[in-house]
């Protein structure tokens, strides 16, 4: 059945496709879970829908309420769509150095945007978000980094979908941002198969993004529980771009750069399995497609050019 009552009912249940040309062997296969095939084009639709519904259920969100979300993009776009359909106003705080497509998309969906200056790095982002929260105490922040409904969305949907479509799954690889995808999916898969490997790939940004004053200002999302993970990789811009291009060149799969970073880690896990002579079914999550990043110019030119065009940008 491919008929739905509304766009919200279309969320999740995304396809899992094999990558026969990039899989190392018949015994070690790599699979892509296409979460760009969600209503607003990213995995964040799952979390946005769960977080809004949870806030409605516990009375935090009432009709006409304003939702405030600091976001670098996809969560804002997902929330904007859900907010529109459910009757809320959305205000997004985002850094200036995100791609123009994201800004256009947010405005199209009706979100209001407050920019924090890119020049100030994370310190400025912190200051801006803090100031707005003080000025508008009635605005509701869903706070995806500590919202259990974010991880639960993946525990209840992404995880079961993966096991249903790939019962022989040995590895699950996804990006580490809020950590919601990995925590929720990882917990579900681990419960069903204690041997499954849960692998995180996090983007390693340029200096600007790490512009803290000292180590003690660091931050780990409340949702993060290291015991859910088997391994964790930091993937540099160059590797992320290389793999992003490889996916579209070899398999025709057009993804965003964070997915390139995730695929880089998936490929490493797959090749280790080959070396060890083990069978493996490695599934990785496609968080979004490449459309929103075309203006970066990083899909063409040399790798060095691509790397420098992404420098200082939040590409995940």
């Amino acid at each position, binding site marked *: 059945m491919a008929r739905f009552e509304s766009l919200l009912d279309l969320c999740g249940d995304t396809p899992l496709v094999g990558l026969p040309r990039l899989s190392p062997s018949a015994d070690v296969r790599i699979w892509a879970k296409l979460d760009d095939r969600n209503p607003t084009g990213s995995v964040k639709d799952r979390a946005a829908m769960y977080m809004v519904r949870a806030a409605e259920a516990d009375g935090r969100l009432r009709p006409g309420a304003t939702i405030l*979300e*600091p*976001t*670098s993009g996809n969560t804002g776009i997902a929330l904007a769509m859900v907010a529109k359909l459910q009757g809320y106003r959305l*205000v997004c*705080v*985002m*850094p200036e150095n995100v791609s123009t497509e994201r800004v256009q998309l947010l*405005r199209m969906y009706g*979100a209001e*945007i*407050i*920019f924090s200056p890119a020049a100030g*790095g*994370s310190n400025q*982002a*912190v200051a*801006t*978000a*803090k100031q707005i*929260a*003080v*000025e*508008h*105490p009635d605005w509701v*922040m869903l*706070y*995806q*980094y*500590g919202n259990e409904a974010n991880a639960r969305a993946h525990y209840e949907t992404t995880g079961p979908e993966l096991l249903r479509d790939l019962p022989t799954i040995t590895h699950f690889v996804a990006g*580490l*941002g*809020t*950590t919601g995808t990995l925590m929720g999916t990882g917990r579900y898969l681990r419960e069903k198969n204690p041997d499954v490997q849960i692998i*995180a790939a996090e983007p*390693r*940004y340029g*200096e600007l*993004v*790490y*512009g*803290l*004053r*000292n*180590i003690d*200002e*660091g*931050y*780990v*999302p409340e949702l*993060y529980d290291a015991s859910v*993970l*088997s391994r*964790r*990789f*930091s*993937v*540099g811009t160059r590797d992320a771009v290389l793999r992003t291009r490889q996916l579209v060149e070899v398999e025709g799969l057009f993804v965003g750069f964070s997915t390139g970073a995730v695929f880089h880690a998936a490929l490493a896990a797959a090749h280790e399995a080959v070396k060890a002579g083990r069978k493996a079914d490695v599934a990785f999550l496609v968080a979004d497609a490449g459309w929103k990043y075309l203006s970066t110019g990083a899909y063409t030119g040399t790798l060095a050019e691509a790397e420098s065009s992404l420098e200082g940008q*939040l590409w*995940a």
Partner: protein
Amino acid sequence: MAIDVRIPTILRSFTGGSKTVAGSGETLAELLSDLDSNYPGLKARLITPEGGLHRFVNIYVNDEDVRFLGSLDAKLNDGDTVTVLPAVAGGAFGMAAALALSRPPSPQPTAPALRG
């Protein structure tokens, strides 16, 4: 045994501004002790008085997080690259949101700076 170590901006005051330094050691603990002899004070920023990795420090050997490789006991080989990064998972915005949620008392109402 030469191991390249990438130092984040906020810790370069310990390395005379150097972005990359070289060190040696069979394990991460040995490497950090070796580095500390050349760059005094660096180790104390990475390891707590109890002897564990600082909560807000991530260290990677060839891009893999050492917390999943035995932490300070992680084995090192000649030619490895070690990367030290401050923990800002979720990017700056996770932290921004977390701090914004801890709203200080007595807000001063001002006009919202919306550019919608």
